[in-house]
């Protein structure tokens, strides 16, 4: 196997040096679920750059949040000659028939970021369960017991359920022993910050000062929660997030948020490009570094997966993000009092 890949890479390199011969390039198709969110542009740029380095073409289609459109998109990508498919499932169950059509045509499918439960699909992404676990661990470190509020993501979104599951993996023991008390939890329509803010305000009304930590499932909602806490004079309560939004990192620097589970999607984009390259070359994904098997006992499914772990960012290690070029020092330090954070002085 390795020899074939090696050979292939050498051939590719030669091809590139002669001046990109189209015959060697594979066409990789991506079906986005809803491109209009902060992160996907970054995903696409990293994916495209790495694929082009490897000598492949990228075709994209955006389902704009529609199950039907995504099925049509996948058919369209196949018709346009995609030889490997990356799919960000809008509804990861409803997309399976379209995925099976691709597999039937001999086109390998990679589930990108959101897991599609199918034995022949390879999954790559920041596992939401790992994200949830990182959030809960970071909060438990600063607030090992007490009254927790859970601000969960969109109820229709599997990713929100994955994150929630990860959080519960970490805190459920403490919940059962009574150390942690979940005094309120709410799903948040479409993960909207304004909705999270109103919900948090109402939860503060109901529970007031007894709230001791807020497990928010992402940074956008954390901005709403922080605004509600500030209004009640409770800013500084342990608060979690995910994504590494610039505003969230700034909140961490100002002491208004405890952590964000940073998903450097550029790492994901590059890793996915390499995975697609390997699969296109006939490599078994299970032989790759970091590969593992995801097992769903209930559905009896075993599938190859390359889960990436998010990096927990707290006030201690913001410089990691600056060094990676994710955020500038100026963006981190907006409104940070001098002497509070060495990075900002």
């Amino acid at each position, binding site marked *: 196997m390795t020899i074939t890949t090696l050979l292939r890479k050498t051939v590719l390199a030669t091809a590139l040096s002669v001046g990109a011969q189209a015959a060697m390039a594979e066409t990789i198709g991506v079906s986005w679920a809803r491109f*209009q*969110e*902060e*992160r*996907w*542009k970054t995903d696409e740029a990293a994916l495209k750059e790495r694929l082009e380095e490897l000598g492949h073409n990228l075709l994209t289609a955006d389902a704009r949040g529609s199950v039907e459109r995504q099925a049509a998109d996948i058919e369209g990508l196949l018709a346009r000659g995609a030889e490997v498919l990356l799919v960000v499932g809008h509804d990861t169950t409803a997309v399976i028939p379209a995925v099976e059509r691709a597999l039937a045509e001999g086109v390998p499918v990679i589930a990108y970021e959101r897991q599609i439960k199918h034995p022949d699909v390879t999954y790559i992404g920041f596992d939401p369960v790992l994200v949830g676990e990182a959030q809960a661990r970071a909060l438990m470190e600063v607030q090992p017991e007490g009254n927790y509020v859970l601000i969960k993501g969109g*109820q229709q979104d599997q990713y929100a359920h994955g994150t929630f599951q990860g959080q519960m993996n970490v805190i459920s023991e403490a919940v059962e022993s009574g150390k942690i008390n979940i005094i*309120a939890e*709410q*799903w*948040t*329509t*479409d*993960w*909207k*910050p*304004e*909705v999270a*803010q*109103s*919900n948090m*305000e*109402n*939860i*503060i*009304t*109901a529970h*007031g000062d007894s709230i001791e930590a807020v497990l928010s499932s992402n*940074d*956008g909602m954390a*901005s*709403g929660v*922080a*605004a509600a806490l*500030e*209004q*009640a*004079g*409770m800013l500084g309560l342990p608060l979690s997030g995910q994504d590494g*939004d*610039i*505003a969230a990192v*700034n909140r961490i620097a100002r002491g208004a948020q405890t952590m964000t589970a940073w998903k450097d999607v550029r790492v994901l984009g590059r890793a996915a490009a390499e995975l697609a390259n390997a699969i296109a070359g006939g490599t078994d994904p299970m032989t790759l570094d970091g590969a593992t098997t995801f097992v769903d006992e209930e559905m009896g499914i075993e599938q190859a997966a390359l889960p990436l772990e998010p990096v927990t960012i707290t006030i201690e290690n913001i410089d990691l993000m600056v060094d990676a070029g994710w955020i500038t020092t100026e963006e981190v330090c*907006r*409104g940070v009092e001098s002497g509070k954070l060495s990075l900002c002085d």
Partner: protein
Amino acid sequence: MALGVALKRMDEGSRRLLALALSLVAIWAVFQVLTGGLFLTPRNFYNLAVQSSTVAVLTIGMVMVIMTRNIDLSVGSILGLTGMVIALLQIEVFPADAAWNWPLTVLLGLALGTVIGLWQGFLVAYIGIPSFVVTLAGLLIFRGATFEVAQGQTLSPFQNIYRIFGGGAAGSLGETASWIVAALCAGIAGILIMRARRDRLLLVTTALGIAGLVAAVAMFNAYDRPRSELGHGIPSTILILGCLAAIAVFVMRRMPIGTHILAVGKDVEAARLVGVPTRRVVLKVFAAMGALCAVGAIITTARLNAGTTNLGTLMELNVIAAAVIGGASLDGGRGSIIGGVLGAFVIQSLDTGLVLLGVSSSMRQILIGFVLIGAVWFDRVAARHR
């Protein structure tokens, strides 16, 4: 007996408003009991007022749009776009510490909202494209543009003074100023009803209104600012809402365009024949709607202290629902500004109360949907009995 006679003498619009105000009080009472006294605490009352403000501001415009037998499906997207443009200018483009920054961005935001409104009004009134189509297109166009403005990034933080518009701890009047505002309002109301001294019913309703105002201000003042004994007072968002609603009511009742809006909604052809500039009326109504969207954007972004891509998504539905609960008829020619504002409070009260009870978001959607149908159904049945 006297009350019955008085009620019969009331015109249909006032009766509907009275019913709506009573249902709002009833909803509050029910939640007060169900939540074990949490609902009508000063804190929740204050939050409820601020949470309702954006939808209520937009409803003022929506009532006028609906009265001209049009609809605006793009309000949430216009709000998103203007909010994001304000955020981009204030946070990324202009210097963060310049004193002129926030006033200029606010003005530019209002201008942008108005221009968008004029554009849509032009398409509806002068080109003759149905408003449903124009604003459906607007919903898509401006939502897409909202993303393009900052490539989907969340922008934060705003200037401190700007955040006053959000009605948080900094955005409230304080106790003394709140009482002064209340006294001014009561005074104006008193002068206005001097002329109608004979009308006992009007006197009673005005007295009740002033009592409600005093109670509300007392509630706002009873909610202490964090770590202090000083009360919040009237939130800025309610002040903005109150001023805008008062202007709108004045325009509808006392200015020619108010009559024109009604005439256009009842029968466009007849209105044109008697010399109403029907096209210009529609154009102006859409322009006002656009400007109000910008006001909503200012309140929402200042409150959240961030501009986000999905700002205002699906808000058009709450706004239309509030207008309809408030008595606006989609057949045109009928609607009430105050009713719409009360409608916005009804919807937010249900939402807030149900969250306090720990009801899930999907169940909340179901219940509020039924309330919408219920309100119009009740209205129909009541109308048939008259």
